[in-house]
């Protein structure tokens, strides 16, 4: 924010001039609703309005945010947030993130050097243990091929999230996740009795590296939300990730870091079609919703995705990372036609695979169409369940996407188009003929869906729900949908329409939403200006509160509605979190309440309530928080209060 200070004084002058006119405009705002880009941003906002904006465009006020916004002006603050590229990121945050080793890695490196090692090692140890005599090297390879089918899934049987740690410490978490599938203590000992101490050490190290991937990913999400100056961007990355949810576990696990970083984040304020395309081409989504295995009933074969050539594996070992050169054809409004030659060379590449001549075993029965992605693409990503498509459309869309697959997924291979798996012929989707052939079939479906009026309404509704209210005002949804269509799905424009709308600033919108556990935790850390040196402890806390990060299993993601988050166990968990935070009982997280709020509980209460704009808190909350015997108790009672659970 510092970098825009220069411009802001000029803008403030401008606003002075405009301001006078604006007052009269706002008075008559209801009449101006029809005028599209009208902004209803109050020119002289009270603190309550500022906190509302900080709660919705970001993860709540921290430190001196309210004063900063007052200085900058609300209009400029919102503009700035809508253009995160103009905001200088917090250096402290960047330094902290720079110490994480997996965040910038390709999926290949993560798969091969962090995730696969644990699986391979275990298999290797198994083979050593269980009848070495029987398994020739060939058999070993075949087994490995089989294992890639199932192993990643097996590995996560217990789903990091399904059997989350009861424990609150990170070490316990890691222990719990790494051993939960092994069963009882004796059994584990029995199982590992065969291992030499070196092997045990090796296995432990391999498991540690695998955990590092998920830990660092979850921690960066928390740290960014707490400390990023680009608050709206973080909110939208969270929103779009959830909209295009991928569960991190099994075969998707190595891909999710890159999915958020390269697919979601760059498009969070971009064009919807680009985002949709990037998602459709992402190995994470292709794996998660099974499209990688979908084969057209009339497809010519081969029916399996091509594999990474051994040479490319060698290249990779030399440090030439494959997905550094993405072959993704993210189609803008005018996608490049896929040349038949490119397709041919694609399959030629697959055929020129190792001279060793071990063709991947063909499945005994020809695999068929998998409708999973096609259905969710329409139901959850674009049109919405009421968006006007039929089961036949689902089948036809599924046919269009046959061949959109992932090669060597266990090794972090990239998305490819496999023409052998693609259903030939003309398809009919939502009354339109799709006859482009090959990979273009899918692209045309994406074009069609991205520009469908149902999509505009569906996306507008979800965004309005996120920013305004669980049941957003219909007029606002209509205007936002219109903006979506007018701008060819420009998400920045749509978000702007919503967050500058009169509805957004209506009194009813204030604190209309219950915070998700993630929003609660992050807003509490911000409200207390907590110093998070190690976010590790917060990861299992979120599991406990019912919101494991990257751990929403269904493709719907987490449901953005108060009813998802109001259950008694989770609420108790929030109060306990407030207590633990305020009393500095979270290892790696420090709050210095007294230096901020003073030593006097009554004073602290007033300041805290004021800074969180809980001035309208119920008289009980006011009086009970005042009963706190010390500043920590006051803070806990404030952060655990019903009012603070809302935003």
């Amino acid at each position: 924010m510092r970098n825009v200070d220069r411009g802001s004084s000029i803008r403030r002058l401008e606003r002075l001039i405009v301001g006078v006119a604006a007052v009269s405009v706002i008075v008559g705002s209801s009449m101006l609703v029809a005028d599209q880009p009208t902004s209803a941003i109050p020119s002289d906002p009270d603190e309550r309005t500022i906190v509302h904006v900080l709660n919705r465009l970001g993860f709540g006020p921290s430190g001196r945010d309210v004063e900063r916004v007052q200085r900058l002006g609300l209009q400029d603050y919102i503009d700035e947030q809508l253009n995160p590229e103009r905001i200088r990121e917090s250096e402290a945050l960047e330094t902290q993130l720079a110490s994480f080793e997996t965040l910038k890695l390709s999926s290949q490196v993560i798969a091969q050097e962090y995730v696969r090692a644990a699986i391979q090692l275990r298999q290797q140890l198994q083979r050593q243990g269980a009848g070495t005599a029987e398994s020739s090297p060939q058999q070993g390879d075949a087994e490995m091929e089989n294992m890639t089918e199932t192993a990643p899934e097996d590995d996560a049987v217990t789903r990091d999230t399904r059997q989350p740690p009861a424990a609150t410490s990170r070490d316990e978490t890691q222990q719990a996740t790494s051993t939960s599938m092994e069963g009882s203590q004796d059994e584990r000992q029995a199982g590992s009795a065969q291992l030499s101490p070196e092997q045990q050490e090796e296995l432990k190290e391999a498991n540690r590296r695998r955990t590092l991937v998920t830990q660092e990913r979850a921690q960066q999400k928390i740290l960014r939300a707490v400390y990023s100056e680009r608050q709206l961007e973080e909110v939208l990355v969270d929103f779009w990730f959830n909209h295009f949810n991928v569960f991190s576990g099994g075969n998707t696990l190595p891909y999710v870091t890159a999915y958020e970083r390269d697919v979601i984040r760059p498009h969070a304020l971009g064009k919807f079609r680009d985002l949709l395309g990037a998602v459709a081409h992402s190995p994470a989504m292709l794996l998660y919703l099974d499209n990688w295995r979908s084969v057209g009933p009339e497809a010519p074969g081969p029916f399996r995705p091509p594999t990474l050539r051994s040479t490319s594996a060698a290249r990779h070992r030399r440090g030439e990372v494959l997905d550094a050169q993405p072959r993704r054809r993210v189609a803008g409004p005018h996608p490049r036609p896929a040349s038949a030659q490119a397709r041919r060379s694609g399959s030629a590449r697959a055929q020129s695979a190792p001279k060793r001549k071990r063709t991947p075993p063909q499945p005994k029965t020809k695999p068929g169409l998998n409708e999973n992605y096609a259905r969710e693409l329409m139901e959850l990503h674009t049109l919405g369940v009421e968006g006007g498509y039929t089961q036949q459309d689902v089948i036809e869309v599924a046919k269009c996407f046959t061949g959109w697959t992932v090669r060597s997924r266990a090794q972090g291979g990239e998305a490819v188009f496999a023409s052998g798996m693609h259903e030939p012929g003309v398809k009919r989707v939502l009354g339109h003929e799709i006859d482009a052939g090959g990979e273009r079939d899918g692209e045309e479906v994406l074009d069609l869906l991205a520009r469908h009026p149902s999509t505009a309404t569906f996306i507008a509704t979800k965004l309005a729900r996120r920013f305004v209210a669980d049941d957003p005002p219909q007029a606002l949804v209509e205007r936002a949908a219109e903006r979506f269509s007018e701008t060819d799905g420009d998400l920045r424009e749509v978000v702007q329409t919503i967050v500058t709308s009169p509805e957004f600033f209506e009194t009813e919108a204030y604190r209309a939403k219950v915070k998700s556990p993630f929003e609660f935790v992050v807003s509490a850390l911000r409200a207390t200006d907590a110093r998070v040196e190690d976010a590790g402890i917060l990861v299992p806390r979120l599991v406990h509160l019912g919101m494991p990060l990257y751990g929403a299993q269904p493709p719907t993601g987490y449901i953005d509605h108060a009813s998802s988050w109001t259950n008694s166990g989770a609420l108790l968990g929030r109060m306990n979190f407030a207590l633990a935070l305020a009393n500095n009982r979270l290892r790696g997280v420090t709050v210095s309440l007294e230096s901020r709020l003073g030593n006097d509980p009554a004073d602290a209460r007033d300041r805290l309530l004021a800074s969180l704009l809980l001035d309208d808190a119920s008289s009980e909350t006011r009086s009970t928080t005042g009963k706190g015997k010390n500043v920590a108790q006051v803070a806990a009672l404030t952060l655990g209060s019903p009012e603070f659970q809302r935003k």
Partner: protein
Amino acid sequence: MQTRRIFLKNGATALVSLGFAPSFLVRTASADTRRQRVLVAIFQRGAVDGLNMVVPFGDKAYYAARPTIAIRQPGGEGGALDLDEFFAFHPRMAPLHRWYQDGQLAIVHACGSPNATRSHFDAQDFMETATPGVRSTQDGWLNRYLRTRQLEEQTPLRAVSLTPQLPVSLKGTAPALAMTNIKRFDLRAAASVRSSFEEEYAAAADQALGQTGGEAFEAVKMLRAAEQKGYRPENGARYPRSPFGRALTQISQLIKANVGLEVGFAEVGGWDTHFSQGGDVGRLAARLNDFSNGIAAFAQDLGSRLQDIVILTMSEFGRTVNENGSRGTDHGHGNVMLALGGNVRGGKVYGKWPGLTPEQRFEGRDLAITTDFRDVFGETVVRHLGVRDPSQIFPGYTISPNNFVGFLS
């Protein structure tokens, strides 16, 4: 919703009049006269090998398919424990054998999901939502059951899962709680801070949060009161010292404390035996022993209360008929479920046996399914829990007594 509000109003009144005394004390006086039917669901996560759990030793194809891991026929050392001259328990399931012989434990074999997925995630979700193939179902079958039953007096402890996280089975709008330890389901704060929190929520203008907060405090009080009495298993029951044993001990504690428990949930893992699964001893044997010891101790501990309880076990799918190259088994299809309890017509293995020869198998490799798991759930809901119209609980599926295998009277 109506009843929830009534409960809360009572809760709030009690709070004012009795201070910290839990209002349920008044209720529990009458609780003993109205016998609450309870379901305890046990999920074997990771897909247990049902063919080595309840061994079809009478099927020759079984031994042909499993040269090193098959369980020997009943009789000799390490042999299976005969059930009906065709099926037998794994030898390490001895603790449950007596319950079968006493006619209180029934088995449904070749049971499972019509969906062919071999993904643990999907299959668990499909079983827990009871909507195979439909991923978008938002709530679990047990939560939908709770919704169909609106009791006059219901407590925040109607449904408790002794797991770190609420299982999908219990997700939904009816209140359900997850905890790993009753002791730890508490507000970690001084008494004054607790009551301050309680006042905040009691006075909250916010309906939803106020209600939920009220439930939370009520649950805490009930659990504290249950804890105060301490807990000693009865009838000489000895629970295994494992997470599973601890979970069942606590479910028993809740049942005996009359806190209004209607559904208990526990899970037990370690079944994904792709390698070195073992036979009468080994990895699977150890897991089955923990599993059986836990359930047998639980039943023993409950004593006469077992009359009102059904314990139902489930696992997302079975495992391959053939053992694999690592002396283990891979993901399969059909599986086995156990039911133990008062209404159970035990001492019998239910379901039609499809056979294990390659042509009898599902997709040539797995145990085929002759009983849809929803019919087992359905029978439980209708015959044990007394639901007249289960259609809300099983969307997209018709529950008909004609499809019940008849393991409940």
